[in-house]
């Protein structure tokens, strides 16, 4: 089994945050099911009066050796480095320090090489590998994780924004608001047949929702699906003509076509061709 330590609350800038928010964040980490929660001594003192801190740990009091890797390690034969470290007769935990693009990769690879304990943080706070990315990557590889409730990651992301004042970018892996938004007709068609075709994991796994949007890259099945969602009757001929209008409009306005705009396009088309629309 893999031991996961979250170190988001080990960040010095969070120590100055509102105590209710910090407590909520701690609770959400418990709901997610991580093994240990690394705290600054200040946060430890803050929570101690109110909570049974059975999962809390202060960095200096960790029972094992903490290996901290920079991004440079990824340029080398890091697998050999890992293998020699893992031969040492002592307990090791692994984390990265400001490893940027390589943080998640180095952490996931530590487990692949046989490591069993890692330290991460939500959104990579404090320079660790982003917890949300590492967890989903390990889940995808079938690594021996204890049962974790990934749907709590959304709440952790929300609280992270409140605690730090940072905004999670819309395309941030796992936590971004728009990562399950699809426009490409090929992709929507594939997802409708089997979501696995164009999604790494179902959105529900991380408490998110899929959204089909219409635009320049739309196809027939995407339009059919949208019309069904909006409970609008249509014919194939009508759908095809509508698809042309959607693509023209998207290119003219340089953005996606909203549901209301779709309805207006359909109405316009009906008036022109006097086809029936019910809805």
């Amino acid at each position, binding site marked *: 089994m893999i031991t996961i330590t979250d170190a988001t609350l080990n960040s010095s800038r969070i120590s100055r945050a509102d105590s209710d928010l910090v407590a909520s964040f701690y609770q959400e980490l418990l709901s997610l099911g991580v093994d240990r929660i690394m705290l600054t001594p200040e946060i430890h003192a803050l929570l101690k009066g109110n909570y049974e801190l059975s999962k809390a740990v202060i960095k200096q009091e960790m029972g094992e050796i903490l290996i901290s890797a920079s*991004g440079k390690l*990824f*340029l080398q034969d890091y*697998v050999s480095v890992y293998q020699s470290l893992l031969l040492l007769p002592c307990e090791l935990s692994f984390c990265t320090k400001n490893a*940027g*693009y*390589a*943080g*998640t*990769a*180095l952490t*996931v*690879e530590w487990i*692949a090489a046989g490591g069993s304990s890692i330290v991460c943080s939500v959104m990579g706070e404090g320079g660790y590998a*982003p917890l949300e*990315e590492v967890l*989903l*990557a390990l889940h*995808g*590889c079938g690594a021996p994780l204890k049962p974790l409730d990934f749907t709590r990651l959304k709440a952790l992301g929300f609280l992270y924004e409140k605690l730090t004042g940072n905004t999670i970018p819309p*395309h*941030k*892996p*796992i936590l*971004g608001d*728009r*990562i*399950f*938004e*699809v*426009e*490409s007709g*090929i*992709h929507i*068609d*594939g997802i409708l*047949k*089997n979501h*696995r*075709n*164009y*999604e*790494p994991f179902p959105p529900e796994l991380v408490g998110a929702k899929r959204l089909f*949007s219409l*635009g*320049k*890259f739309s196809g027939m099945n995407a339009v059919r699906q949208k019309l069904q969602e909006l409970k609008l009757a249509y014919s194939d001929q009508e759908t095809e003509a509508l698809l042309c209008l959607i*693509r023209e409009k*998207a*290119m003219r*306005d*340089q*953005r*996606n076509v909203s549901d209301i705009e779709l309805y207006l396009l359909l109405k316009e088309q009906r008036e022109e061709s006097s086809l029936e629309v019910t809805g």
Partner: protein
Amino acid sequence: MKKKCFLTDTTLRDGEQSPRLCLSPGQKKGLAVMLDQLGFYQIEAGIPAMGTFEKDIILEIIDVRKQSKISVWNRMDKTDIRHSFDCNPDVIHISVPVSDGMIYTMLRQSRSWVSKTMNSCVSFAREQGYEVSVGFQDASRADISFLASLTESLQRMQVSSVRIADTVGILTPTTARKLVCNLKEHTDILLGIHTHNDLGMAEAVALEAAKSGAELVDVTLFGVGERAGNCDSFVFTKAAEPLFDFFPAYQPLMESEAKMRRLIF
């Protein structure tokens, strides 16, 4: 001496597929001019089968480019490829779904159908004298011996390169390394890697694939693309520079960053 690595920019194809990103002909052309000036090996300019508007932009890009190869994207379908002929590009890229999931649930066909159709589509474009590259869509979940047998026929048909597409962004450095090394054992065809950032490893996986022998790497400006995006050209060039020689290098690319940002967003 550092190893050579060739960059394909796919901002104008996979990048633009990102919802809410819709580039005007002027923006696409402007970006293509900059990418060409910077010296990208290849620019994936779009999908001709989308219609006349897309073909017109591709034709304009081909008209103004000075050094980059211009490639166009096709489904494994002769009608798509005929649309590409209208643009007379440098490279016709054909995307072949290769995982059993995609073959059985999306195409509703069999592996042997895929193999036959791929061969006939490639020959169709090769007979017209085009350089052809093939993308293995969802290669991360495909059977390696099936990929090896497809690659062997592609090499016989003198396809210029094979692109390993991690379509849903689930490769890790280890799985990417194994995939590249396995294919390299069966063929000496040029291998490309196309990654997605679903697990936050797009650049790391691309870099590990390059370390393991992939010669071509797909990138997009600012990492734009489906879902969590593609391999970010700025991040990748900065990270890979100590090990590889490529064009454009990180510094000149960064110098154009602000201008490109204004043009895209």
